[in-house]
């Protein structure tokens, strides 16, 4: 019997497949597959107040990837807790709420409010490249990353995952800083910062000019960073960035991830999270792996 379970800072996921923040909606993704199949649902970023997000176009396709500049459009934490959370909690899987903020106080306010609910974990997004104030700034400087972690850790009654940005010179430095301040886990990577120009219209494709770059194109960067961070800190890692297949999941696990998130893949194929989970099981059966830990240990570094 294969055991896919994962212990993420004390929270037990039935399997390592989670949904990357911003690429999943309970209602809409749930039209395509049974949400109970997921190890956890990670929600779109939620802030203390409603955010309108950026102007359109917000999406551009690139070679093997895509750009988005959604800009964390969200209805605010109060609406979320009242109207969206109950729906999610009805499923037999874990709920991880992705938290957005423009200031440390913003993050803390959301974390405090969520602490009074039955969500399982918080994922603190200090790395979104699509908001002008805060966001990216927190994730690219160790001191700021440490500070956010410290303050949110103080007020949160839930385990906190800090989501790291790849747009830095040395990601291990940031990872160490958030570990030192009490993060319970880290997730990486958020999107790279990218840009596309329409040479016929002669302007950037995105209204916001630059956007977050995701999809299979970026996987080599993500695997590298998970590998580096695994060797720098002891916290559990959620690995993501370009996962399209079960073998991609194995790649992240071998690099050092405890769980993974599937993002852009769910645009190319709405049932990707479940298909990928089944491919992971097929890989494990083929090589007779019984647990994820065995996969990790099979890696020859």
């Amino acid at each position, binding site marked *: 019997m294969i055991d896919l379970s994962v212990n993420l800072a004390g929270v037990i996921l039935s399997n390592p497949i989670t949904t990357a923040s*911003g*690429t*999943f*909606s309970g*209602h*809409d*993704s*749930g*039209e*395509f*597959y*049974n949400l109970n199949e997921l190890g956890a649902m990670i929600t*779109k970023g939620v802030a203390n107040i*409603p955010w*309108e*997000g950026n*102007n*359109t*176009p*917000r*999406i*551009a*396709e690139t*070679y*093997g*990837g*895509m750009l*988005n500049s*959604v800009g964390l*459009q969200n209805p605010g934490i109060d609406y979320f807790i009242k109207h969206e959370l109950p729906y999610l909690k009805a499923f037999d899987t874990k709920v991880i709420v992705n938290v957005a903020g423009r200031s440390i106080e913003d993050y803390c306010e959301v974390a405090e409010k969520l602490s009074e609910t039955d969500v399982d974990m918080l994922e603190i997004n200090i790395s979104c490249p699509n908001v002008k104030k805060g966001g990216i700034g927190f994730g690219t400087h160790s001191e700021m990353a440490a500070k956010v972690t410290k303050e949110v850790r103080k007020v949160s009654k839930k385990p906190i995952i800090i989501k790291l940005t790849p747009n830095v010179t040395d990601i291990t430095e940031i990872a160490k800083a958030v570990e030192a301040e009490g993060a319970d886990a880290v997730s990486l990577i958020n999107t790279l910062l990218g840009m596309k120009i329409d040479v016929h219209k002669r302007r950037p*494709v995105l*209204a916001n000019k630059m956007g977050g770059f995701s*999809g*299979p194109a970026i996987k080599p960067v993500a695997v590298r960073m998970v590998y580096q961070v695994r060797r720098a800190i002891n916290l559990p890692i959620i690995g993501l960035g370009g996962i399209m297949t079960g073998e991609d999941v194995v790649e992240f696990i071998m690099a050092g991830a405890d769980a993974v998130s599937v993002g*852009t893949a*769910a*645009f*190319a*194929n*709405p*049932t990707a999270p479940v298909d990928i989970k089944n491919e992971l099981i097929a890989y494990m059966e083929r090589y007779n792996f019984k647990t994820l830990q065995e996969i990790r240990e099979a890696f020859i570094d």
Partner: protein
Amino acid sequence: MSKKVAEGKIVQHTEIAADVYRMVIENKEVAASASCGQFVNLYPRAKHTLLPRPISICEIGEETITLVYGVVGEGTKEFASYKVGETIRISTAVGTGFKPQNTKCAVLVGGGIGVPPLVELAKQLTCEKVAVIGFRDEPFLKEELEKAGAKVYIATDSGKAGFKGNVIELIKEEGIEGDYFYSCGPKVMLKALADYCMAKNVPVQVSLEERMGCGYGACVGCVCKVKESTESGYEHKKVCKDGPVFLGSEVIWND
């Protein structure tokens, strides 16, 4: 779990104008899911093109749907290469389509590659209907609209066929009147028509286009601004789910 991506079988595929193709796809589930003004997502097989291509449903049959699409980039170029008998990756119908209102006289206004969804709409409207359709150069779907009982007026930018000019000019020129408008086409056209209808105080349903990430409501990539009594005076609504069809009067155009 009412939606899925299926393999549809291509049973007809013809070029009906320069770089404009009509594809009839057989798949019971897709056909059963469809209503007028909705769209489907087509998924290219080439792995370097990841995103779905949204295409409006032009006609709905028992076990088939008909799409009409223009070749503009890599995805539609790939689709154009498919042969009859091959399969295509296609979603069941998505979005909120036209709400046909059987008023006295409906006016259907289409621009270029926005004309296709008007065909199924025309078929479902039992009232009197007029279609005003504009193209750069070469008209298409005229016969289909006529077969659906519409009186068809054509405008082209080049003047090669029908009226030389745009659809709004043609409407004014011909004095076309109606008590309900429906429209699909380029944003500039939709905006002009919405303004025109607003001035005339006739309702208009418009079908919008926007770049999509997921095509099914998960990513919030495809929004448009709809008037709302919020602080900013609007709310971002999803074109792929709340739309593509909105009331012209509720859309905020200028951004």
